[in-house]
């Protein structure tokens, strides 16, 4: 089962102006006073979601994990320091991390991150960063730099410390940066990042021409990945990795009953100290999860939204070849689209699932690929995705059955021990 996810939007201000970002870049900061009030409400919300949600569709119990988000969260370290003390003192809090572009890292911030034991998720577009992540002009924090890659170059020693042993970054793909995906992959691998989490923006921003380009470029990037496996290098590219895991779980057990955490077992705390399903809803102040009661009835019904946002329930998907494995796209975009997945995103999903299967076929005799697949199963590669109680032998048996029966395989209901992967946050 999933753990409740809280994203704390500590500011809506950012030093970068990424064209695909949906957060208004304005000078709003979450204050300590608002956070303290909201924290009390948050604890009630976690309890409410675990007691009123549909069985198997959300979190169970009081556990949760937290990510600081923005804007650029490093612009509000005062709040982060205060909030972290509260979260770390709460036994129900399993993890606290920061989702950041890391361009504003300083020695002082880095020391704090290490001392507080905060996780770090780096949003970094690699080679295309200067184009896809332009600096906000006339901002004090950006003074002295021409572009974001210069900022990173001057802070390489701090970046190394922030990433610790992880060689991971989140790379958003949008129509403006897909033409050099392969070169970007090579750039990141040369930097030592062997887990670049390339992920498409799952919004209706893709024209037919963009999709044509994406198809060509995705194929080219898959070819490069095959070369890496052939050379004995294990490189984990986010969208292919996600696809292989979703195929394995979807075809052997059942796909998960949520697309992402938004509104089903997660929320964002906005800069106003209010709660919404995610930052996109917060940016429009839509669908508040206030926790207020009217005549004894909560105003946000987790069970209702868990049913509405369950990718197993979308009527459009039921005749799709990917129905058993695909978790659709962004809930916000889909609600906007009559609560159905958006066609352009479906096309992208087909493209990278198709490439994932091709990679498996072409690499099946390569030792590096064999090692990679085995580690996906045993959790040796990324044990953060493997449920502690996962029964690997049971999963192997399920795969054997699926291989015998293909897509006619009958799905089995998810049980806590059969669910091999923890939830993977889906952004974009």
């Amino acid at each position, binding site marked *: 089962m999933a753990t409740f996810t809280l994203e704390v939007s500590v500011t809506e201000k950012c030093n970068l102006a990424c*064209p*695909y*970002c*949906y957060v*208004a870049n304005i000078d709003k900061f979450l204050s300590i006073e608002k956070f303290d009030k909201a924290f009390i409400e948050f604890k009630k919300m976690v309890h409410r979601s675990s007691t009123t949600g549909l069985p198997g569709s959300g979190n169970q119990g009081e556990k949760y994990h937290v990510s600081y988000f923005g804007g650029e969260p490093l612009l509000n370290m005062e709040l982060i320091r205060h909030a972290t003390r509260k979260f770390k003192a709460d036994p129900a809090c399993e993890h606290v991390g920061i989702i950041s572009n890391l361009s504003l890292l300083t020695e002082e911030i880095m020391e704090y991150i290490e001392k507080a034991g905060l996780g770090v998720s780096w949003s970094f577009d690699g080679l295309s960063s200067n184009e896809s992540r332009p600096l906000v002009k006339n901002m004090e924090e950006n003074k002295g730099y021409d572009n974001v890659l210069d900022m990173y170059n001057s802070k390489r020693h701090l970046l190394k410390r922030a990433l610790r042993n992880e060689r991971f970054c989140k790379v958003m793909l949008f*129509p*403006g940066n897909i033409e050099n995906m392969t070169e970007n992959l090579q750039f990141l691998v040369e930097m030592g990042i062997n887990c670049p989490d390339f992920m498409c923006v799952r*919004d*209706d*921003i*893709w024209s*037919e021409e963009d999709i*044509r380009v994406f198809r060509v470029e995705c194929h080219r990037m898959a070819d490069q990945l095959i070369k890496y496996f052939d050379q004995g290098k294990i490189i984990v590219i986010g969208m292919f990795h996600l696809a292989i895991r979703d*195929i*394995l779980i979807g*075809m052997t057990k059942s796909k998960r009953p949520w697309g992402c955490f938004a509104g089903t077992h997660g929320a964002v705390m906005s800069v106003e100290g209010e709660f919404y399903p995610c930052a996109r809803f917060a940016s*429009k102040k*839509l*669908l508040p999860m206030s926790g207020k009661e*009217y*005549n*004894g*009835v909560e*105003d946000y*019904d987790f069970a209702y939204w868990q049913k*509405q946002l369950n990718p197993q329930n979308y009527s*459009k998907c039921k*005749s799709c*070849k990917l129905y058993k494995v695909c978790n659709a796209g962004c809930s916000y975009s889909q*609600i*906007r*689209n*009559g*609560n*159905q997945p*958006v*066609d*352009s995103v*479906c*096309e992208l999903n*087909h*493209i990278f*699932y*198709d490439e994932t*299967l091709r990679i*498996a*076929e072409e690499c*099946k005799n390569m030792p590096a*690929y*064999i090692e990679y*697949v085995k580690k996906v*199963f045993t959790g040796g590669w990324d044990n953060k995705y493997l449920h502690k109680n996962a029964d690997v032998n049971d999963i*192997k048996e399920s*795969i*054997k059955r*699926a*291989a015998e*029966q*293909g*897509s006619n395989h009958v799905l089995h209901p998810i049980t806590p021990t059969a669910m091999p992967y923890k939830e993977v946050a889906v952004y974009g």
Partner: protein
Amino acid sequence: MGDVLDYIEKRQEKIGEIGRQINEKDTPQKKLSRDNNLMLETGEYSSSNHRMYKYDLNFKQFFKTISEIVNK
């Protein structure tokens, strides 16, 4: 009890209503790339299952391959 049920019906913001609100509030004023590409015309839902390309997606073969690998 009737009051409570009426209240739930009234209070629960149904999916269609939220979709309508998003479309009303989601104005294309932020970024040029979004302006050019992001916004559907209000109410223009994309719900076909037409695909631009043919995809093989042979899961049976995939699982045979994976099964061989896992049992190596």
